């Protein structure tokens, strides 16, 4: 009985911390499936966290807060799309800049809200966790079993072929990146509206980077993102829970080390991870050029 509560408690914590990872990585998977790397997840998440908290506090409604977080995340992503798709700047540089911009701007705007507890928070695991899992299933179906999915994947694999098929590559990439930002915004909003629930400058503290890694770890597959997020969430919590018996230093690197190990093993087994990467990932598309 004791051990059962222990396992159950750990799973609940894993689900709680895994939720923002799941929402964030689903968004990143879709953006990268269209061929656009967005390293601005950290920035979009922190902007979502700030706006989600501020709006939820002012309106007294956490759902409206989350919607605001989604809109702000999407707007931030639009910036990345503009720079990297239309202006064809380096996607990595643009994403990094977005991360720094988001951290700076939210820190500046957030001073007044710092530390205040949210009056009406959202429950931690009963709302966004099941919604996120359903969303992952839906996104998997769309990706592999609908025409939209083919359009998205073709754009990421071979934009030239997509263009030849009459697909508007620019439009698809814009939509995918903005959708990714929308989910990243919700992931950030979850942190300030349900997980903490409070606003602190820089509160994402690197979660956005974990999200980028998890998108790759999941092999750009929305279904796999469910268990990779949950696994990382459980390991993150265990790195504190297990401190009763195990020294903290190895525990601190456990979630990351474990991820690398699984990734390496996965890559060795027939190079699945390699194959899954969209062929044109990170490359701006210019008609007539290769």
């Amino acid at each position, binding site marked *: 009985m004791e051990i059962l509560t*222990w396992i159950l*408690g750990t799973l609940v*914590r894993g689900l709680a*911390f895994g939720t923002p990872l799941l929402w964030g990585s689903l968004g990143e998977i879709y953006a990268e499936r269209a061929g656009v790397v967005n390293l601005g997840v950290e920035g979009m998440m922190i902007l979502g966290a700030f706006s989600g908290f501020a709006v939820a506090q002012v309106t007294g409604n956490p759902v409206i807060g989350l919607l605001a977080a989604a809109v702000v995340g999407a707007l931030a992503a639009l910036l990345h799309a503009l720079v990297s798709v239309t202006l064809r700047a380096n996607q990595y540089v643009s994403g990094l800049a977005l991360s720094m911009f988001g951290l700076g701007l939210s*820190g500046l705007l*957030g*001073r007044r809200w*710092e*530390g*205040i*507890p949210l009056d009406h928070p959202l429950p931690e695991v009963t709302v966004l966790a099941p919604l996120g899992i359903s969303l992952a299933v839906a996104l998997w179906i769309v990706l592999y079993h609908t025409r939209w999915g083919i359009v998205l994947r073709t754009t990421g694999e071979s934009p030239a072929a997509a263009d030849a098929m009459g697909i508007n590559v620019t439009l698809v990439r814009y939509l995918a990146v903005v959708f990714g930002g929308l989910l990243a915004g919700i992931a950030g909003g979850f*942190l300030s509206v349900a*997980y*903490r629930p*409070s606003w*602190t*400058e*820089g*509160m994402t*503290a*690197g*979660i956005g980077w974990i999200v980028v890694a998890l998108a790759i770890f999941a092999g750009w597959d929305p279904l796999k993102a469910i268990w990779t997020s949950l696994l990382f969430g459980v390991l*993150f*919590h265990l*790195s*504190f*829970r297990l*401190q*009763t018996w*195990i*020294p*903290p*230093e190895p525990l*601190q690197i456990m979630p990351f080390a474990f991820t690398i190990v699984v990734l390496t093993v996965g890559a060795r087994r027939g190079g699945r991870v390699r194959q899954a990467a969209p062929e044109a990932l990170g490359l701006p598309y210019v008609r007539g050029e290769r």
Partner: protein
Amino acid sequence: MRWIKLFVIVTAMLLVATTGWAQQSKLKIGFIYVGPIGDFGWTNAHDVGRKQLEKAFPGQLETFYVESVPEGNVEPFIDKMVRGGAKVVFTTSFGFMDGTIAAAKRYPDVIFAHASGFKRASNSATYMADFYQIYYLNGLMAGALSKTNRIAYVGAFPIPEVKRHLDAFALGARAVNPKLTIHVRWLFSWFDPAKAKEATEALLAEGADTYAFTEDSPTVIQVAAKKNRLSFSHYSPMQRFAPKHVISGQLVHWERIYIDFVGKVLKGTYTTQNLQNVDYWWLLAEKAVELGGQPGQAINPLFTGRLKAAKVKTSEFGTISVYDLVNRRLAQMSKNPVAFDPFTGPIRDRKGVLRVPAGKTMTVQELTTMEWAAPGIVGQWPGEPK
């Protein structure tokens, strides 16, 4: 017409000359911060100190700062400050220590002061406002208020500073309730709300009901309060974030040190020649630190009743309430020299090794290098001596 022109030019030149002169006569003081000034702990507290310093000497000095300076790369920032005319430079993080000493060698006519370190030079002093006495007082209260006999500490890094605070907290708690255990989690981060949250959740699952911590956000307080658990505020006034659950806490007043130090520089007491042995180790007696979760309130009045009802047997005062004990210890430690120190022997560590012999009190040197764990502490303790 020509005369008017000449007059205007001469006046303008005079104006520029005099304001330039006035600016030169003002003492320029630079501050180098490790974090953003908007954080909820260390850097913010230093910046409050800087502003108070400006107010204390109106018109006599000019301060400026850089924030979020990486620990390993402080020297270029010092160079820039000195080029900008700084005559006094405060470097406010442990990791700036070697960079500060190197810069002090390079700029012999500039005065430096480094917070929390132990290396000095003829033109470079050290200073620290330490909390260990306050953690002891917080421990006394935790010992009286814990119902599960399990209290918790979320620590940033297992370094002497945090271990000293944890030990003082544990010694205080066990002075009131010897059956009590102190459960520890390490974050390996000064600021990380997600880590602080999961560490607190792990401790909640273990049944700890009173929380102290070292982390620069109110996360521990708020997560504990959500489960109706009590806590102590850390570094900045955090009581307002959980007014029904914060018992007390630790507050810092860096301005006390800054005003004293700069006053002595202005008077000529401190020069670039005589700082080799200047080390501020300021505590309650110097009013560099304060007991409480908000300024001017040592104990949240909501807990006064329960603390008065809890009785404790002491060899010094007989049987008194914990409320009285806290106040008496506070008064004893606010005297100079102190009438009580938490680290007075005999103290054994949790392995039974005698760390402080009877009748002895730990020296500053011993306090800043201590690694042992006090009895009652449960959990990992990296670097624990055998």
